[in-house]
Each structure stands twice: as structure tokens, then as C-alpha cells.
């Protein structure tokens, strides 16, 4: 069970969204790095789905995820039973702290000093690296992007491409400063140098920690999607492999996986498939010559079962972490991943993080969207992200008496001033007579309209009131 937090990690104040966003907007390098990366990803995704009945495929993706969620407790039990039968040990963690402790205990039992990591967003959510360091265990990222981010003592700015905010020159300088790699703009050289450094680490690591893309209940299989091969190294070379995953990642069968895999890689990076699709169903058997002798799975709740309670919010748990929503988000493209200050940035972060950190801490997240709908349009499992943003806005201000708010920290954004403005607005607009009088008077005295209108006119001219309202003109026409 949850105790008081044992570690605080790299605490970032999520509430400071605005200053970070503003700084990013005025940083031409950040703007350029994200704009060009997102443009590339959007066009690759489009190409990758050519020849597909994409709407039907997305429907299938949504249904596969909804079916799994509908049976979630049963599937988790089936998964546990099957994994156990296969020789994989299953652990359950109510929150991030407990998940960290489980990993630590497994490491301690093996007297492990070094952990090599494959990419795992759940481990970012747990702030596992920081925790293990505090426990005297070295945790090293092996995904090239994560490795770069870790060397820079930063967090990922994108869930699929962690170092997307950096350009080659910056990365070269970083590798030079931290590892002694010669300065170079040759990506192949920089990559080869990282390969050399990390191979040593793989060979000497005591434990490998990875994430999981899909956990299959029927066969007891952990599926990992990757291009680099570091995931395979992490899960094969060290004598112990610990996989960490959110409880929502379980699906009934490999057939479900075939549908989700078709959507995941195309949505994420526009690849028809990644280089490696790694399916792990057990530790090394007696006759086998490699592979870990121990495999563990840590099932992490950390707020997910709370999301699960509500029929609408539940859709958040459909997510397969492809990142397409951020790739297509005009806000994410402008401010980059770090502005959010959250583990998951972009649209998915805006609808997921408030549950993990509370709506008080995450109060600026749901409103930081123009509700343009690009995220919902590309989501491979059809999460209605804009609707969920509106729902969370309502939760933030406790704005619906019919549907009382339930998310942790709800109402944190409600101010009596704003509430009063909306009440006044509703009073004026719910009565046609008052509305016509008010708009008519505004038109009549439009010469008095101020040329400044708050933040609006920092960037634009104020809209100009017409001499006569449409109501008046239609009335003149006999309507």
C-alpha cells in the first residue's frame, strides 16, 4: 500500500506552464526543431496508411481496446495466471512509489549494482532512475534518445522521440562533454560511438528494465515495439529482466495485438512496422543458451483504477502511446514537450496527467488547447480527446451541477470572479429581450468601443461592431 512518498524525483512545477510555454515560443531553435519534426511525422503517417480503410481500422482499434477494458480485472487475472505458468513473476503496485520499491527489492535480492533500461514511459512516470540512484543503484537508459536526455539531465520531450527538441550540434556537444566523443555532425558516427559505449553497459548490467506495449492474457506474452534493438538487449542480455507496465496494457489475445500493432507504428512514426517486434513469454529455459534467468512484470495502477470508474474518462485508458496526438497538435508544435512539465506531454498528457497529479497541480493543462480536434482525428483508438478536455475543464471549475465533478483536485480553477462573469453572460444570453437590447445598444454606441481588448489586442486588432446587428437587419426585412 501507498506510504508517504519516498522520493520526490526531479520535481517540476506543472503550474508554471505559461512561463515555460512563453520561453519556448520565443526560442527559434525549439520552434524550428519541433516544427520540422512534426511536419515530417505527419506526412509519414499519412503515407503509411495509404491503401488502408483507416476509419474501419481505427474502429477496430477502438473496439479492441474497449473490449479489453470492459474485461480488465478478468484479463489481469488471466494474464497473471498465464505469466506465472510461464515462469514470469507478477507484482502489483498501487502507485509509483510502490512500483519503485518492487523494482528496488528485486535488484537488492540479486545484489544488483547496475540497471540498464529500455524505453519505458511508465518508468518515467515512476521517476525510477532517480529513485534507483538514491538507492545506490546505477540506472542507465539505452534507447539512444533516452540516453541523450539522461546525459543532459533532462526529461523526454516526446513519448516516442525523447530527444526531439535537440539538434545534431547540441547532441554532439553533449556527447563530447559527457562521454568524450569527438565533436561531429555525422549522425552515423555519433550513433556508432553510443553503440560502443552502451554495448559495454549491456554486458555488465545486472538487471534490465523495460516497458511493455501490449501484455497478452491468453498466452502470457509481453510485447515490445522498437527499432534500435536496445529493447532486445535489455530483455535478453542481463540475467534478470523487469518489465513495468500500466494495468491498462493487457489485451485478450495475439489477434488483438495484430490490430493494435498495425495502428501503433504507422500512427507513431509512419512506419509499417518497427524493426523489432519482441514477444517475451518466459525466462530462459534449462536447455536455452541465452535470455534472462528471471523475468518479472510489475503491474502499475498509479491512478488508472480511478480513471476506470467513470464511463467517459475511461476512454483515456484506451491509449496505446503512439504520440500521434502530439505530432498533430498545433499547441505542442509551438511549445514543445518540456513546457508541459509532465511525464506525458501534448494532448494525451492533458487528459491523462490531471488524474495522476490532480487538477489543482495540472490546472492549466486542459485549457491549453484550441479544441481544434486534430488529436482526436488521428488517434488510432479514437479517444475523443477534445471531449475529454472539455470534461476536465468542467471538472476544473466544478461547472456542472447535473454531473458533479469527481477528478482529484476538481474545482481548483474555479474563481468567483470568473464564475460571476459566466453567470452574467448566461443571464444576458438566456433572455432574448435583454440580449437584443444589449447588442442593439452596443451597435448604437459602437464609436465608444475601446480599441484594446485585453490579451486579444496584443496580437490582433479588436473586432469592429457592425452599425446594425443581424437581428435589426432581419427585422427590417420583415423577420
Amino acid at each position, binding site marked *: 500500500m501507498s506510504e508517504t512518498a519516498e522520493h520526490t524525483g526531479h520535481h517540476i512545477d506543472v503550474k508554471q506552464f505559461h512561463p515555460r510555454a512563453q520561453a519556448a515560443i520565443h526560442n527559434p531553435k525549439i520552434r524550428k526543431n519541433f516544427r520540422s519534426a512534426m511536419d515530417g511525422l505527419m506526412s509519414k503517417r499519412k503515407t503509411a496508411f495509404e491503401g488502408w480503410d483507416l476509419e474501419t481500422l481505427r474502429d477496430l482499434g477502438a473496439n479492441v481496446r474497449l473490449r479489453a477494458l470492459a474485461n480488465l480485472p478478468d484479463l489481469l487475472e488471466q494474464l497473471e495466471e498465464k505469466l506465472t505458468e510461464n515462469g514470469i513473476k507478477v507484482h502489483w503496485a498501487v502507485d509509483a512509489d510502490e512500483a519503485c520499491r518492487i523494482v528496488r527489492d528485486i535488484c537488492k535480492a540479486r545484489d544488483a549494482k547496475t540497471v540498464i533500461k529500455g524505453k519505458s514511459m511508465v518508468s518515467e512516470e515512476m521517476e525510477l532512475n532517480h529513485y534507483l540512484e538514491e538507492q545506490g543503484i546505477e540506472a542507465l537508459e539505452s534507447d539512444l534518445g533516452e540516453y541523450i536526455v539522461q546525459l543532459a539531465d533532462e526529461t523526454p520531450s516526446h513519448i516516442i522521440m525523447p530527444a526531439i527538441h535537440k539538434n545534431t550540434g547540441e547532441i554532439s556537444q553533449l556527447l563530447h562533454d559527457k562521454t568524450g566523443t569527438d565533436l561531429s555532425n555525422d549522425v552515423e558516427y555519433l550513433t556508432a560511438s553510443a553503440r560502443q559505449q552502451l554495448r559495454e553497459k549491456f554486458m555488465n548490467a545486472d538487471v534490465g528494465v523495460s516497458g511493455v506495449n501490449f501484455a497478452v492474457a491468453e498466452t502470457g506474452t509481453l510485447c515490445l515495439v522498437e527499432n534500435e534493438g536496445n529493447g532486445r538487449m535489455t530483455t535478453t542480455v542481463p540475467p534478470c529482466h523487469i518489465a513495468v507496465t500500466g494495468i491498462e496494457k493487457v489485451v485478450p489475445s495475439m489477434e488483438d495485438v495484430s490490430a493494435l500493432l498495425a495502428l501503433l507504428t504507422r500512427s507513431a512514426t509512419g512506419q509499417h512496422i518497427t524493426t523489432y517486434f519482441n514477444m517475451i513469454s518466459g525466462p530462459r529455459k534449462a536447455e536455452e543458451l541465452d535470455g534472462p534467468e528471471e523475468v518479472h512484470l510489475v503491474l502499475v495502477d498509479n491512478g488508472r483504477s480511478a480513471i476506470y470508474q467513470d464511463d467517459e474518462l475511461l476512454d483515456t485508458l484506451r491509449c496505446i502511446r503512439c504520440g500521434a496526438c502530439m505530432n498533430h497538435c498545433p499547441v505542442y508544435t509551438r511549445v514543445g514537450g518540456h513546457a508541459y512539465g509532465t511525464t506525458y506531454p501534448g494532448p494525451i498528457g492533458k487528459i491523462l496527467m490531471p488524474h495522476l497529479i490532480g487538477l489543482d497541480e495540472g490546472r492549466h493543462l486542459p485549457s491549453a488547447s484550441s479544441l*481544434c480536434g486534430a488529436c482526436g482525428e488521428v488517434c488510432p483508438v479514437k479517444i475523443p480527446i477534445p471531449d475529454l478536455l472539455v470534461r476536465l475543464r468542467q471538472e476544473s471549475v466544478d*461547472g456542472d451541477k447535473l454531473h458533479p465533478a469527481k477528478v482529484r483536485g476538481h474545482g481548483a480553477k474555479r474563481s468567483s470572479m470568473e464564475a460571476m462573469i459566466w453567470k452574467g453572460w448566461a443571464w444576458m444570453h438566456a433572455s432574448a429581450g435583454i440580449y437584443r437590447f444589449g447588442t442593439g445598444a452596443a451597435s448604437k454606441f459602437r464609436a465608444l468601443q475601446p480599441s484594446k481588448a485585453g490579451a486579444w489586442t496584443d*496580437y490582433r486588432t479588436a473586432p469592429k461592431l457592425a452599425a446594425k446587428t443581424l437581428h435589426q*437587419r*432581419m427585422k427590417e426585412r420583415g423577420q
Partner: protein
Amino acid sequence: MVDPIKVYPSKPAKVYFYGTCLVDMFYPDAGIAGVELLEREGIEVLFPQDQTCCGQPAYTSGYHDQARSVAKAQLDLFPGDWPIVVPSGSCGGMMRKHYPDLFKDTPDEVKAAEVAGRVWELTDFLLNVCHIKLEDLGEPTTVAMHTSCSARREMGVAEVGPKLLGQLKNVNLVEQIRPEECCGFGGTFAVRHPEISGAMVSEKVETLVDTGAKEFVTTDCGCLMNIAGYAEKNHKPVSGQHILSFLWARTQGKGGQQS
């Protein structure tokens, strides 16, 4: 998001015209142009004088009680069985897509769903219900088009504007890069997150200017106010108008003008 298959009604004798508050106060010409186009198609236009606002600003700000009270006042405006046409994808989307959710589990649930089912974005209605044929009487010109996000994604009318403009033989329609990207308006978003909204609209204007077109048209007055307002304040060589104003002016042999 949009109904997977839209079932267009056959062309009716009458329609209800829902003007929207932005058109009402700032762009009544666009509303009048819409009315003229409908009447030229032989449709009688009913304008309920008691209409105010669809309730969207409060809805997207999370103040659903207030949104519901304003929206409720609109539900009684359309007693006949005529389609409701709206010169805005955004307000149309609010009414068509969000009214059913907003009134779920209330006594108005059935009525809200019924009203929602009759709501049409006006250009979509002109093209696909009236099967309008436009005769271009204007001088050769080049325009770009910005379809609002709600028109595109909630009302599913991304193809409509370009098709209507395509009927105008002297109009050269050019496409900006990333036509589907949001202009940064987003209602209260523009004032809650002014820097982000500003960064979005500046790029939108840049891409419009890059097309070489001196004017753009759009389905929604929110986008118009945002894009044209930015261009005006920053002296960018592009101006805008509602697509309905443009279509009406082109087919009347006079240039579009705002009063």
C-alpha cells in the same frame, strides 16, 4: 466525431436561420449574404428574433450549467420541422454534436437531440441540399480558403468550400501549406493562452501570405476575426471575409464589402 454518413434532406421550402452571436454583432453582412443565397435558391428564410448564442463559450470553458441555460433558450426557437442552417461550423458543431450531450439526463434530452439532428452548416446545405449552381460575375481574382476546425472535423465540410469556390470560373483558389492546421482562435483559448494563440495565428497568416493571394475566405467568424485581426494589426498584405459574403458578392457582380 461527425456522423459517419450524413443523410442530407431533400430541398425544403423553408429553413430556420441561426445567425450566431459573432455574425449578429460583428459580421451581419455574412448573415445577410447567407439569407440572400438561400432566398435565391427559392427557400423561405425564417429568422427567430429570440435567438441569442448557442452557448459554446461557456460550454468549452467548463461552465456547463450556464451553457445549458443559454442553450435551453434556443431549443424552443424552431417549432416547425424545417432544417436549421448556421453560417458557422463552430456554432453548428455545438448544436449538432454537443447539444445531445449537454441535455442528456434532463427533461430536454429528446428535444435537444431532435433539434441537433436538424442543424446544418450553411455552405454544406447550399452545396449538398440546395445543389446550388453559382455563376461568377466578378473580375478574375485569387483567394485562399481557411476552413475552421469545427467545420472540418465536427461538421465534416472540408470539401465544401473548395467545391463552391470551384464553381466560380474567375476565382483562382490557392492552397496554403498545412490548410488543416488550426488558426489559433479556439474561443476563450485566444485570451487564456494569448502567446500560444498568437504564435499559431502568426504562422497561419504567414502561410496565407505565402500563397500570393491578397484575400482569404473562411467558414467561421471566429477564425476571420483572429486571422484578419492579426493581419491588420501586423500590416500583412492579406484580408479576409466570410465565404458567404464572398459567394454572394461574386454572383451579384459587385465586390464584397463590410458595413
